[in-house]
């Protein structure tokens, strides 16, 4: 099982320039988290701090009870063996071919025979679909291949914490989707704690259990995916929808003039759609075990349900299966821990469908929930999935 990473009050600056201040979050063991943020908000710096490559001025990073910012060099090297890190460009060793690159951690840290190393390396190469390229040098292959080779190297020691720095940059949408699925499958197989730093919205919506966002030198929010995906925070709304209008500007923060121009109605560009709302999370490939992290997360989120905003709460409740409802003692009509939303919940429960599968309601049921196809506030587009929780919550609040 993965390892929990606790970050408390972390601050980092280069010289007088603060990168981020007072970041506190917990990466729960065995779960997948995504950290979003506009370019240049210190996402990569955060990742490097987590592995002790950079030392923050203040705060703690606790892994297995050891503070990474204060421990000795030798202890740090010991802890780093728990990590698998995928760097932005793969960071392969240029003087070695792909096979030697992937075999490097094994040769350094284990006493395996060459035959065993070969077996493990080929297994990982197959996982990232690089079989046949073992003898190539990193300089001879494309960026996407380098990235996949970097991932294979990060996985070769069966890490308990996997950090990915923009796994999607430089990859086409299909490869990105494959990589997302690969990470989910990995998590199901080895139950590692995964943190992905990205600005790819599709990845952020479909992959993680937990979502966070960095902006303006601080952590805007971090919590269960439902929380960020249904948030009304203007920064989050703008970022998720990829709009020009909002607090995020070209140079991270907008100046007053630009904001004023926007308010005066100067807008251009393609019509805008609101893609917020909760979409089904990716599931492991059939045949793999269920993700233990997802189960643990469900328990945790249900326990802390009362602390979530109403919209997120509704999203969580909507995503439960019948099995879950029985487990949490929320059979139809009983699901009343959520006072304001109680009415819609009990109304929805009897016709509830498993979320993955996108099937229309079976014949005989009351037909698809009309809320599925309700137009959203902005411009008339259809919200997909059962993301209506947002509005329901909004109305009841």
């Amino acid at each position, binding site marked *: 099982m993965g390892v929990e990473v606790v970050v408390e009050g972390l601050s980092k600056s280069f010289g007088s320039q603060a990168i981020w201040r007072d970041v506190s979050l917990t990466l729960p063991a065995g779960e997948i988290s995504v950290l979003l943020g506009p370019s240049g908000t210190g996402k990569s710096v955060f990742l490097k701090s987590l592995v002790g490559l950079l030392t923050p001025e203040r705060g703690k990073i606790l892994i297995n009870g050891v503070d990474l910012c204060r421990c000795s060099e030798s202890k740090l090297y010991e802890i780093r063996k728990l990590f698998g890190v995928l760097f932005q460009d793969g960071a392969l060793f240029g003087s070695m071919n792909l096979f030697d690159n992937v075999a490097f951690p094994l040769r*350094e840290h284990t006493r395996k025979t060459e035959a065993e190393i070969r077996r493990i390396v080929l297994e990982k190469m197959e996982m990232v679909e690089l079989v046949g390229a073992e003898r190539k040098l990193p300089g001879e292959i494309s960026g996407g291949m380098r990235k996949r080779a970097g991932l294979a190297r990060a996985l070769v020691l069966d890490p308990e914490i996997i950090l990915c720095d923009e796994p999607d940059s430089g990859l086409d949408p299909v490869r990105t989707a494959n990589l997302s699925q690969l990470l989910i499958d990995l998590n199901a197989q080895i139950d590692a704690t995964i943190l992905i730093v990205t600005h790819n919205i599709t990845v952020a919506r479909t992959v993680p259990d937990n979502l966070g966002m960095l902006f303006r030198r601080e952590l805007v929010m971090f919590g269960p995916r439902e929380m960020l995906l249904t948030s009304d925070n203007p920064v989050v709304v703008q970022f998720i929808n990829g709009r020009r209008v909002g607090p995020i500007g070209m140079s991270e923060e907008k100046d007053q003039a630009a904001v004023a121009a926007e308010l005066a109605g100067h807008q251009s560009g393609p019509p805008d759609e609101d893609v917020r709302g909760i979409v089904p999370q990716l599931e492991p490939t059939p045949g793999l075990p269920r993700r233990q992290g997802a189960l643990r997360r469900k328990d945790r989120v249900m326990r802390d349900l009362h602390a979530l905003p109403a919209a997120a709460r509704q999203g969580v409740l909507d995503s439960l299966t019948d099995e879950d409802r029985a487990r949490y003692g929320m059979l139809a009509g009983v699901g009343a821990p959520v006072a304001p939303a109680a009415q819609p919940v009990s109304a929805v429960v009897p016709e509830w469908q498993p979320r993955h599968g996108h099937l229309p309601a079976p014949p005989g049921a009351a037909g698809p929930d009309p809320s599925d196809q309700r137009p959203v506030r902005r411009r008339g587009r259809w919200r997909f999935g059962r993301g209506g929780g947002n509005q329901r919550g909004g109305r009841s609040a």
Partner: protein
Amino acid sequence: MSSPTPSFPGAAALRETGRLFALGIDVGRATFKRPFQVREFIQQCWFIASVTILPTALVSIPFGAVIALQLGSLTKQIGAQSFTGAASVLAIIQQASPIVTALLIAGAGGSAICADLGSRTIREEIDAMRVLGVSPVQRLVVPRVLAAMLVGLLLNGMVSVVGVLGGYFFNVVMQGGTPGAYLASFSALAQLPDLWISEIKALLFGFIAGIVAAYRGLNPAPGPKGVGDAVNQSVVITFLLLFLVNFVLTAIYLQVVPPKVS
């Protein structure tokens, strides 16, 4: 972790110096840590030797010749021709040979080490290595520094021989000195500790060249230009340190070891 960094004129230079020393100490400690990177060490030895042997030999011949010519004309003026050989051997073994060796180790070997480590650093290879739980100091820097030291030591021997031969040739052939007197006076002034100090200097200079190259290589300014600048700086810094350390060592040696003829 660093507490508010004080800033006063020269603070940055002091900080850099401190970190350079820290790296030197780290290298010293990591040298005795298992596993020792034998393969990397041998490769680096071969690499440094291959880029330095020929230039060193070519530099040491004229160097020996210049010293022989200078001393030859000087001794002739004061009528001490019988000591020409002795003086030129002393000058070559004690001063010229370690300096020539170190200049070439720093110029040819050190710059290559610095460029190599620098480009690895900006490609995040060094970070990746740290994250994989492998210390780049132990894996990369130690073999390089030890290789620079060993090659320095061996080259120093070669430079001494070639330099003395060059000196002999120019003194005897060009200036008409007597071969017998030149050879016989070798042991008149020179003694065994002269050879020791020469080798110690070569060892130390190799260490300095290796450490400075590694330090600049591991801490370049960002971007390809940063690496170019780092290589440039590493050579200049090494040269400055070499002459300083050479001065200090010579002064100590002359105080500690009694001259043969007193």
